[in-house]
């Protein structure tokens, strides 16, 4: 599998070249959020506002009201928890086109609880007018700017940085409100987002080889939650639904699925894999995914429980699964 280094840094420079309305606002995490190449390429469109996120929201709102499109770069925790009222009142209420690029979603950082955005999707979903996107690989990082820019109101993006795998071929960009159907048929429905999709692919590939197939969709749009393919997968889920998210099980993907199923009276089980109403702590991604039950092995066990039979797989079998970029639903079957 291809690993792309700092995909956003390069892409932002390329993408913003002929878009003079695009300005970048930074809050002292410029290189950490891969905005440094933009800063060096277009210094007149880069504004450092320091560690002051409440004011950051207001400046972004003012610029947006005057026709600019501010792209805010900082960690997700500092865009959501810290200046929540400012984001709600200055940006969301007036439905302004402010783009909030939140880095370090969930347990992707060893920086500990202060740096881990584990409730950002819940907080952002609760804001009227907000669109919520999540990147799952390098292709989505490279295409999310187009998706965000086409939205008239504010957009929150869970961004990935550094060494980012390419799960999806570059010719299939992220699309607003359109999940990727990674596997069209199976005994149950599996919904995943963000970095959890890579974990899930290890599971689904390995399970398929043992005769257990699941219907698997990868979501990059978490709000609005109205993709017909997702709704169909939730309303006709087979044995049930499993969601896997790099986030609290309160208010994120699992909650969104629960809302759809409950409102439609879908009487099938829903298993939400995610942080079980707990904060996390500082450690490696692999350690935390395992500790909190967000990894391929945790998912394997959940699927086995729902289908009611064992695959005979062991954790080490999953680590050896070879992943190649997914092209479409039909090819995913052949993984």
């Amino acid at each position, binding site marked *: 599998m291809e690993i792309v280094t700092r995909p956003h840094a390069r892409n932002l420079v390329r993408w913003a070249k002929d878009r003079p309305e695009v*300005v970048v606002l930074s809050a002292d995490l410029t290189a950490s959020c891969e905005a440094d190449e933009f800063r060096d390429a277009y210094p007149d469109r880069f*504004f450092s*506002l*320091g560690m*002051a996120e*409440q*004011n*950051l*929201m*207001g*400046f*972004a*709102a*003012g*610029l*947006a*009201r*005057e*026709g*600019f499109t*501010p792209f805010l770069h900082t960690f997700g925790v500092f865009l959501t928890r810290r200046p929540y*009222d*400012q984001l709600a*009142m*200055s940006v969301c*209420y*007036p*439905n302004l086109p402010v783009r909030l690029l939140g880095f370090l979603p969930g347990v992707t950082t060893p920086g500990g609880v202060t740096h881990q955005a584990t409730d950002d999707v819940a907080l952002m979903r609760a804001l*009227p*007018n907000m669109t919520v996107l999540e990147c799952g690989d390098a292709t989505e990082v490279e295409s999310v700017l187009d998706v965000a820019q086409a939205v*008239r*109101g504010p957009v929150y993006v869970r961004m990935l940085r550094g060494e980012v795998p390419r799960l999806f071929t570059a010719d299939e960009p992220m699309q607003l409100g359109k999940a990727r159907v990674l596997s069209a048929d199976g005994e149950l429905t599996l919904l995943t987002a963000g970095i959890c999709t890579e974990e899930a692919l290890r599971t689904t590939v390995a399970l398929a080889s043992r005769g257990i197939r699941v219907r698997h969709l990868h979501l990059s749009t978490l709000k609005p939650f109205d993709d017909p393919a997702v709704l169909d997968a939730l309303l006709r889920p087979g044995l049930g639904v499993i969601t896997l998210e790099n986030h609290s099980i309160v208010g994120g993907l699992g909650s969104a699925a629960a809302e759809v199923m409950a409102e439609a009276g879908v009487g099938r089980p829903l298993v939400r894999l995610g942080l079980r109403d707990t904060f996390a702590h500082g450690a490696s991604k692999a350690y935390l995914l395992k500790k909190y039950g967000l990894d391929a092995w945790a998912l394997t066990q959940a699927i086995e429980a729902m289908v009611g039979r064992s695959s005979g797989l062991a954790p080490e079998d999953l680590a050896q699964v070879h992943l190649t970029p997914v092209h479409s639903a039909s090819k995913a079957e052949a993984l």
Partner: protein
Amino acid sequence: MTDLDPQRLAQRIRRRVLDHTIRNGGGYLSQACSSAEILATLYGRVMRLGDSVAPMVPGPFQGVPGPHNPHAHTGSGYNGPKAPELDRFFFSPVHYSLVLYSVLIETGRMAPEGLAQFNQDGSTVELIGAEHSPGIEVTAGSLAQTLSQAGGVALARRLKGDTGRTWIFMSDGEFQEGQTWEALQALAYWKLDRVGVYVDVNGYQCDGKMDGIMNIEPLADRCRAFGADVHEVDGHDVEALTAPTRKPPDGKPLVVLARTDPCHGIELLRDRTPKLHYLRFKTDAERKAYEAVLAAWQD
């Protein structure tokens, strides 16, 4: 022709707020007493605004902004059109909305009938105004958010080459919020010197006298330390209020600290000290006493 002499304008603003407070059985009267000269000076003399482009009688609320509501609007049209050479005005302490609506009426920007909609269901002339309310452009009721937003507007205007200035009216209570200081440091750092802030330093907030709630003094020194060009003036002296604006911008945001008396012009109000935030008549006798003040009023 509307008389825009700030001194007379201020007295008419006070009178209108008093009149409305009596009719309404209550109101934000002390805010009118303290800020009348500041707003009269801004509207009557300092700000370069075009004529209102909004309806003389405000229309009903058109719904919250959103992707499916093309009718949402702001109340900025009462401050005239937006143009590169014209000034812009941002009204931060929207608990003073009754005062602002009175300013708009007394400057010929809104019909007196507009005030009949004050705090009526379905109206934009709200008790604590939001961005759809007359004269208001941002949703400022969660206090201290306006200065940052006006800073963003001023930065955008600089990028576009506008020559007009951006004025903000604030209350002193907003200097207890950290965001105000974040905004000041950013305005100074980015040298947004076409921003001018007028602060009604009346020394009172919801709970009472500010120095018994949380101290913000020495406010001038603090603002200066944050990089502003600070002028401390008598907030009821229109010449003193005007003077700082005669100097061309020189690299620093302008902050005018207008020291005011929350009972200025209505001595009867002093009996309520220190609970001045909102006047609600306790007895019929009290209402009659205010009616007597209004009956004897001279602009």
